């Protein structure tokens, strides 16, 4: 049973900043996530890959047969499937990241009591938050890679720029995951989690996902352009066909700011989130 204790020693405080919240060991949270996936829930992981693929086959190929060619980001004619495929990838990055940072965190916190375990060890809440966000992004990376391969196989990725859709998807997921976790810290009941769904569904349907923004009157356009998903859709759509310009950088900047703001919010709210 290990060494005999000659009484417990007195400790010297660790003067690092955030020493009470962070022990520089997020990799343990990641190791746990990977092992749990391998042991118990890899089927759930696989099913998540198919969602955007099924949408693409149904709406892009099926509905696309009725729609025909549409104007792409640079004004050139592209197939309807090629038009909506990057948008579906952005939606999938958003949904996955939001699910992982809200429902999943809320469940592990309040029902599986997983974080209770972790926080009774040397881990601090910041280790847990970083580990969980990393796992969400890793999952997003794998899905985005798979989806991009499917797009290429269907002939929907027409430019080498399309490869950059993978890291761009991860950035989109990062923005949503960071903000999502911050928002979860304000949630106390399961019913409140439904509000997140209320916000996501209209954003999915109306963020120029399935048709161009120009169908809306001016004030509605401004509103949509203020929301995050539109920037993700536009970012990936431009990369998909290689129409890259200052606007692309603008969309990137939107997500960098969103991720940074989300991380600050999450860090400030860590005690509220994990140490209730």
């Amino acid at each position: 049973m290990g060494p005999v204790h000659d009484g417990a020693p007195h400790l010297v405080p660790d003067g690092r900043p955030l020493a009470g919240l962070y022990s520089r060991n997020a990799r343990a949270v990641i190791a746990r996530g990977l092992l749990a996936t391998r042991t118990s829930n890899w089927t759930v992981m696989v099913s998540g890959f198919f969602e955007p693929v099924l949408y693409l086959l149904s709406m892009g190929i099926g509905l696309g047969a009725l729609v025909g060619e549409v104007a792409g980001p640079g004004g050139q004619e592209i197939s309807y499937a090629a038009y909506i495929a990057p948008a579906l990838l952005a939606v999938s990055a958003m949904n996955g990241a939001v699910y992982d940072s809200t429902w999943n965190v809320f469940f592990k916190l309040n029902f599986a009591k997983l974080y209770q375990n972790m926080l009774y060890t040397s881990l601090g809440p910041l280790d847990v938050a970083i580990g969980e966000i990393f796992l969400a992004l890793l999952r997003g990376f794998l899905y985005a890679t798979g989806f991009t391969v499917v797009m290429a196989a269907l002939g929907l990725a027409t430019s080498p720029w399309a490869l950059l859709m993978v890291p761009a998807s991860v950035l989109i997921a990062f923005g949503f995951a960071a903000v999502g976790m911050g928002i979860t810290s304000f949630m106390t009941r399961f019913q409140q989690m439904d509000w997140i769904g209320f916000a996501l569904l209209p954003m999915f349907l109306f963020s120029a996902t399935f048709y161009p923004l120009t169908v809306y009157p001016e004030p509605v356009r401004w509103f949509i352009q203020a929301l995050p998903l539109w920037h993700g859709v536009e970012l990936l759509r431009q990369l998909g066909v290689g129409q890259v310009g200052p606007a692309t950088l603008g969309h990137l900047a939107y997500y960098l700011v969103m991720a940074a703001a989300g991380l600050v919010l999450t860090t400030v709210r860590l005690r509220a989130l994990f140490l209730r």
Partner: protein
Amino acid sequence: MPNSSGYRAVVSARNLTKRFGDFTAVDGISFEIPAGESFGLLGPNGAGKSTIMRMLGGVSRRTSGELEVMGLDPERQGPEVRAHLGVVPQQDNLDEELRVRDNLIIYGRYFGLPMSYLRPKSAELLEFAQLGDKAGARIGELSGGMKRRLTIARSLINDPGILLLDEPTTGLDPQARHVLWDRLFRLKERGTTLVLTTHYMDEAEQLCDRLIVVDRGRIMAGGSPAELIRAHSSREVLELRFGAGRNASAAGALAGLGERIEVLPDRILVYADDGEAVLGQAVARGLEPATSLVRRSSLEDVFLRLTGRSLID
């Protein structure tokens, strides 16, 4: 910190208070625990015991008061303090998505311990918990007693100097409890400081060198089990049952016997130094109890005396 009696307390709480909104769960509690002691928090459900345990681990913030664990404030130095703590929560919260052995290894990883240490350590702890043949099993396949033993094994992965046990044997059958008590005794012999909450008086009497009786967030009394019984109860207790509905009238007839009489819904307790003698007096008064029992006073009686209520409702 060194104090007047010369020892260094590994846990020191002064006016520890925790409020949830209007509700005061812990109300100005002070205590000290020297290294190597087995210290108990005895009280009914909802007394504030678990809240105190959570504050010791730094996973719940106190509203006011001071708290030091191994010389540090667990709220401000949580990860560092917890590196030396083992925690057995009230409800087993094993990681259901991992197998038995992986539960130990991953938990060790949370402490930043290397695999070269964790591989032999996890095997050793599985033996200690008598789960050597269950290493590859899923958590769902374990019995209640096995889960509890695994939870305790898990809490020892970092060789903690202080072990926090929240209701360690609640829900276990008597045999499983005795196995667990035996394991806890061994830890105590190795110098591990034990801090445990319980609402079982026999557990407190078996395991605790010293304890505090907590009710509604306040300390009602403190001392060793024997001291508490001496101070707050008689040497013996006579338990009389007269059957439903007849206890109250019988109590009237018993008036004046022993030091004190408690009327509970199912029985009457007469506190006296000589229980047999009081039973003789009761029979002489013409009372015919359905059953009678003379026993030594226990912490249950102390609690009843201090709060007017039973430990287990």
